[in-house]
């Protein structure tokens, strides 16, 4: 894979950011737990395509996104429930509902495949948003790596706390022991049905913001902004995206 670079940016970018983005792109290209590398890259491409979808624009403008019917303008590489999930999570995340999530699984998307899809979408949205903020073009998507998905589901994952099953709070057992320590917020556990997506999340979060375990202590900060400035930005994005959490 060609190394990711921000040499085209007008401002210097600290090296841990392109390094984290490059690791995310490497993982994006590789087979996951429920999708092949080619499918994961297709999810990434569909995520970018969603911003150009007329149905998504109409839904975003409507009082209820579920009042607008229509077919997404998709790239044709993924099943319809996956396309719908990618488009809605990308363009109107604050208005996805539990009923919609349950319909999505009933339509044939496995719960683990859904969680991994969310992990891929949020990785691409975040890295693309960083590029857009800096005024540089988005990075080319990686060439997919061959191989089957692992079908790995952590034995300790339990349903009930959220729409998706998650590992319980507290230090995870066995192969997931590296995922988190004490003080982990729910949002960092949310993708734990697919542990590698938590690893990607933590790697990116460490470069962009803070270690997830550091978030609860307001004295923690990184870079040139103070913590209040960081939280002002976080709160504004959450409000604009209508995120209750």
């Amino acid at each position, binding site marked *: 894979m060609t190394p990711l670079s921000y040499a085209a940016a007008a401002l*210097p970018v600290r090296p841990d950011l392109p390094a984290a983005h490059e690791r995310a792109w490497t993982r994006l290209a590789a087979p996951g737990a429920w999708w092949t590398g080619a499918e994961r890259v297709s999810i990434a491409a569909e995520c970018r395509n969603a*911003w150009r979808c007329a149905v998504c624009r109409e839904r975003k403008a409507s009082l209820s996104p579920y009042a607008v019917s229509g077919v997404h303008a998709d790239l044709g590489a993924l099943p319809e429930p996956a396309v719908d999930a990618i488009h809605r999570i990308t363009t109107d995340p604050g208005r996805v509902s539990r009923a919609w999530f349950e319909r999505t699984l009933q339509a044939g998307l496995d719960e683990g495949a859904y*969680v991994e899809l969310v992990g891929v979408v*949020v990785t691409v949205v*975040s890295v693309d948003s960083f590029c857009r903020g800096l005024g540089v073009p988005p990075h080319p998507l990686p060439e997919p790596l061959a191989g089957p998905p692992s079908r790995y589901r952590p034995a300790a994952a339990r349903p009930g706390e959220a729409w998706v099953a998650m590992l319980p709070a507290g230090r995870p057992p066995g192969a997931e022991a590296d995922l988190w320590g004490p003080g982990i917020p729910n949002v960092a556990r949310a*993708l734990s049905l697919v542990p590698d997506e938590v690893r990607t999340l933590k790697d990116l979060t460490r470069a962009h913001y803070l270690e997830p375990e550091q978030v609860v202590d307001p004295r923690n900060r990184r870079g*040139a*902004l103070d913590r209040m400035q960081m939280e002002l930005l*976080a709160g504004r994005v959450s409000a604009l*995206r209508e995120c209750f959490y």
Partner: protein
Amino acid sequence: MLHGETLLALADAMVGDDADALARVRDGASPKLGPVAFVDAVAVVSNFERMVRIADATGIPLDGRLELMTQDLRQELGLERFGAAANTPQPGLGRRAAGRVLRPLARGALRVVGRVSRR
């Protein structure tokens, strides 16, 4: 807050879909914040473009202590109008009572948090 308006304008432009508006905000914000802080701010905004989608797409509830401490504040800010508020169960009598007891402490704690989170 130092550069508060500039940071808000940057977040608004990055979440918005007007490329020209974003370019204008970028041109104004970068000299005000300085190059290092500007890149840090872009990194934080793009981080939360990830986190809000994870929270909303997986239906996680608020973390327990946060839920308890912020019952009033959420009402005051009108956050219950967001669809994802349904993912956090309504508190029972016991938690509501605990929330009322903790209300003054939570306000004080927020002030302390505000002080220590500034450099």
